[in-house]
């Protein structure tokens, strides 16, 4: 079989975006996806494209994506990815909540982000549907949201048109080594040769990296989301809360997509399928009603869950592996890989092709983790 220029493992938004930006650099990648395109977190997430409350290391990626890529992405890919940049409101109900927001705001401002605390009156002006319980919010006018399912498929479609190859329904099991360097990969159905392998398989990247003795300190957490029926237009902002009990937005279609945490996520049972738990959707609904009573009239049409690939320090690993030339990691997005995906895709393509991405990825090295003493 003909040797591939680059093999990307995983056809989520990250794998598809890397394939697209590689194609723009005239490198034709082969993407191997075990299920279907966008099977993982990429089709299950809340669509938030946020800079506010991002880790200082990750913020430059988010800012770059929002300033330079998201605004033109639909035109560039030829598919409407429903990007909407109308700001993010993180709502507070108590003085404790305001303290949480103040910390996040101080950090954001110190890094050059337009982020501020607004009072109840201003919150109401921006979003008239909040309940009386909401007393303040942080507001980042340049945040927003997009449609993650379509974004993933749009990157896939455009990369495919530009010559990237995609295979679905084939599972990568291990990395092959030839003379101390990457030689290719082995799947459940055969082998593929390449000097360059990028792991963008979410949590499963860990087991694949383990086959060549590389470990990634990440855990898998199951989180859940739901969607309502189509509602009249209400508000365009991305919504979150200082209490972190729910988040979400109204989609272009009119339905509301909401996610939320019960607090028990890390202790879910060890199931292999991403199942939904009966306690979660009602808990998300109660949280929403406390902030947006008017949405209580809507109907829940669907609930689902998805895995987060949570890194020990909550920022991703975007890095070449020194011990094994040709191996590159793009995983451990820790629940916020969608908003930064365009910047990640672009930088990773540059990293693989010429070794020097225009945005520094130094903070995301795989060997940054140190023991306490």
């Amino acid at each position: 079989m003909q040797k591939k220029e680059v093999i990307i493992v995983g056809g989520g938004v990250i794998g598809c975006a890397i394939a697209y930006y590689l194609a723009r650099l005239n490198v034709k990648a082969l993407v191997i996806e075990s299920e279907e395109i966008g099977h993982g977190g990429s089709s299950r997430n809340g669509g938030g494209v946020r800079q506010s409350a991002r880790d200082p290391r990750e913020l430059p990626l988010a800012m770059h994506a929002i300033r330079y890529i998201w605004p033109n992405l639909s035109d560039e890919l030829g598919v409407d990815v429903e990007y909407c940049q109308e700001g993010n409101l993180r709502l507070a109900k108590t003085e404790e909540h305001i303290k949480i927001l103040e910390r996040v705001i101080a950090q954001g401002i110190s890094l050059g982000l337009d982020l501020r605390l607004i009072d109840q009156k201003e919150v109401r002006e921006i979003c008239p549907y909040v309940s009386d319980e909401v007393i303040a919010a942080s507001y980042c006018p340049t945040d927003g949201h997009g449609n993650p399912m379509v974004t993933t498929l749009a990157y896939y479609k455009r990369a495919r048109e530009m010559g990237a190859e995609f295979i679905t329904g084939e599972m990568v099991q291990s990395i092959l080594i030839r003379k101390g360097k990457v030689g290719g990969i082995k799947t459940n159905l055969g082998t593929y040769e390449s000097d360059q392998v990028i792991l963008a398989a979410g949590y499963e990247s860990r087991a694949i990296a383990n086959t060549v003795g590389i470990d990634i300190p990440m855990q898998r957490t199951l989180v859940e989301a739901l969607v309502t029926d189509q509602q009249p237009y209400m508000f365009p902002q991305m919504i979150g809360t200082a209490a972190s009990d729910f988040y979400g937005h109204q989609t272009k279609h009119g339905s509301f997509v909401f996610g939320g945490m019960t607090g028990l996520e890390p202790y879910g049972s060890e199931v292999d399928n991403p199942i939904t738990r009966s306690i979660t959707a009602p808990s998300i609904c109660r949280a929403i009603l406390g902030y947006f009573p008017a949405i209580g009239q809507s109907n829940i049409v669907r609930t689902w869950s998805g895995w987060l690939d949570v890194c020990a320090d909550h920022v991703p690993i975007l890095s070449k592996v020194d011990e094994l030339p040709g191996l590159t990691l793009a995983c451990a997005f820790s629940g916020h890989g969608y908003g930064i995906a365009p910047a990640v895709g672009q930088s990773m393509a540059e990293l693989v092709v010429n070794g020097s991405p225009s945005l520094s990825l130094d903070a995301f090295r795989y060997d940054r983790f140190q023991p306490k003493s």
Partner: protein
Amino acid sequence: MTMKMERKLIQGDFIPRADDELIVCRCEEITQGEIRKAVYDGMFTMNEVKRYLRAGMGLCQGQTCSGLVQKIIARELGLAPGEVEISTSRSPARPIQMKQMARDGVKK
């Protein structure tokens, strides 16, 4: 696991058909032509077509159009309908008002 598929480009331009205007997904008003074009664009599974177009994503969650969408995808790809896996069904089986769902599990 899903069947292996190579996502090769479909040769030639997209060819419209006389009955492309037929509405297949009634909830979201998605036509046969849109579904055929989505397959041409690379959406080879029911979940992908659904996520790309919203076919089967509306109020009835595909209970009406699933079989039709499945047949159209199969025909475009030269497969038997049964070879195109049906998309995932999820709870709730019928839409539930948010206010009502919020009461589930609350101790009196």
